[in-house]
């Protein structure tokens, strides 16, 4: 009788190493990821979950993704002056693309393991990690708010700014949840706006 229980003690580690390597390549978003076969990766993930390694797989995934997101945060933090927003935007686009692929590869885990736990599905997990480690990083959060406001006021003053970039970054904030958009952009924006009108109105009053 075939009980299909993976009795090989190294079964998980072997298969996880293949997946981990693939996830890293996918995150790099380079052509190396192209040669990876989706079908093969899906099969590895499927059998791991089928053989009761769902929990282990999930925790390994969280660790791998977290360390990757932290690396991204570092490189965004290190970006110089005006390239900050562009760096953030490029990294986000790559990350989002990779997240979709990883979610698809781990589809079976999302479908069968996740519902029986309190854990977040892959896509949500990815967004949460990005929010906590990148957007809410001490060196990024305020800098992001300020840079966005700077852009907006430059534009209001008639200067030529990259609107596409602003649009993409604000869309990212909305994708991360309405509260993120509110905290990082909307609230400070309204505050600054109110102050600037106040100052302007004072000027008029003094002038009169």
């Amino acid at each position, binding site marked *: *009788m075939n*009980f299909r229980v993976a009795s090989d003690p190294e079964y998980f580690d072997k298969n996880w190493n293949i997946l981990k390597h693939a996830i890293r390549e996918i995150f790099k978003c380079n052509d190396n990821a192209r*040669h990876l076969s*989706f079908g093969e990766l899906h*099969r590895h993930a499927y059998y791991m979950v089928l053989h009761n390694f769902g929990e282990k797989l999930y925790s390994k995934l969280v660790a791998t993704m977290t360390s990757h997101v932290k690396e991204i945060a570092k490189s965004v933090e290190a970006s110089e002056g005006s390239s900050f927003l562009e760096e953030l935007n490029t990294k986000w686009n790559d990350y989002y693309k990779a997240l979709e692929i990883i979610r*698809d590869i781990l589809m*079976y885990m999302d*479908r069968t393991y996740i519902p029986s736990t309190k854990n977040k599905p892959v896509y949500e997990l990815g967004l949460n990690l990005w929010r906590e480690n990148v957007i809410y990083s001490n060196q990024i959060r305020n800098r992001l708010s300020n840079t966005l406001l700077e852009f907006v006021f430059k534009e209001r003053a008639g200067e030529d700014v990259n609107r596409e970039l602003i649009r993409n970054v604000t869309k990212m904030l909305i994708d991360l949840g309405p509260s993120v958009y509110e905290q990082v952009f909307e609230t400070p924006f309204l505050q600054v706006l109110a102050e600037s009108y106040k100052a302007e109105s004072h000027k008029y009053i003094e002038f009169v």
Partner: protein
Amino acid sequence: MGDSKVETISRLAQWKIDNFGPCSYKKSDPFKLGIWNWYLSIERNRYLYIHLFPEPSRVSKEQPPIARFILRVSNTASSSSSSRKFYISPVHERVLRTCDDFVWPVDTTFLGRLIIDVEFLDLKIYPLNGGEASSIWPSDGKLHSVATQNTLRCLSRMLDEAIHADLTIITADGTLKAHKAVMSATSPVFQASYHNSSEDKESSTIHIEDMSQESCTALLRYMYGTIKPEDFWKHRLALLGAANKYDIGDLKDACEESLLEDLNSGNVLERLNEAWLYQLHKLKKGCFAFLFDFGKIYDVRDEINTFFRHADRELMLEMFQEVLTIWK
């Protein structure tokens, strides 16, 4: 004699009477419309009475028509064609069994040529085994089934003759040709697989090496809607695995139902294991009932020891709880 013939076309029956003559009653020849033979008859009294009824027979007794129809009588006086007169009945709808069920009096005296039209708008019958009355004429449902059959024939040809096939499947023991579009439409996993592959040669090959060519053919036939019951039966364990892996819900359900149908002492432990592996709740309950409620666990005493050595702990816990519930 020619005067009693009724011509029919489509849903219209027409009785032309060139000359009514001195008689006061006339009955038409039978005419076929739908599944019945019909008669028209005219009685001339103070009015002209027109009857419409089906020929008394087994069909009209068991399944009398529920007819919706309009009658039209037109009269051309022989002297001039300009004095043409029409009488049109309202739409009638009723069950017609005998010649008394429908009579339409026309308040006139006719001379010369008489034309009686019966236009059937619908003919319904009650099914013999009870239920709602339904039309005897082909309706959307029929068209639908014709279209479905045609589609299945096309899909079957697409698979068998590999018409415009854009995918090679490598199984454990051979290759098969199929269509990305069909497979994507049945399984979200295949859809994601083609979505995430780049547009090159690699994306036109997939590996399903955990299935034999024969089982994989059965899977494809299921996806293309042309699987035969005997192939389903033969490959259902492999199909169950594939349905679970590729997220094809209705195939998984069908396999579960089928595995419940032939539980016996020889396969119950294996089935229980499948049920546990693929989270088949109904099958699991069925195996529990077979083993504990029906006491078949005593038939598999030898196998159960091996089973307990390998089975998942959680599964054993559930089995134990099941036994406790029965003891209560």
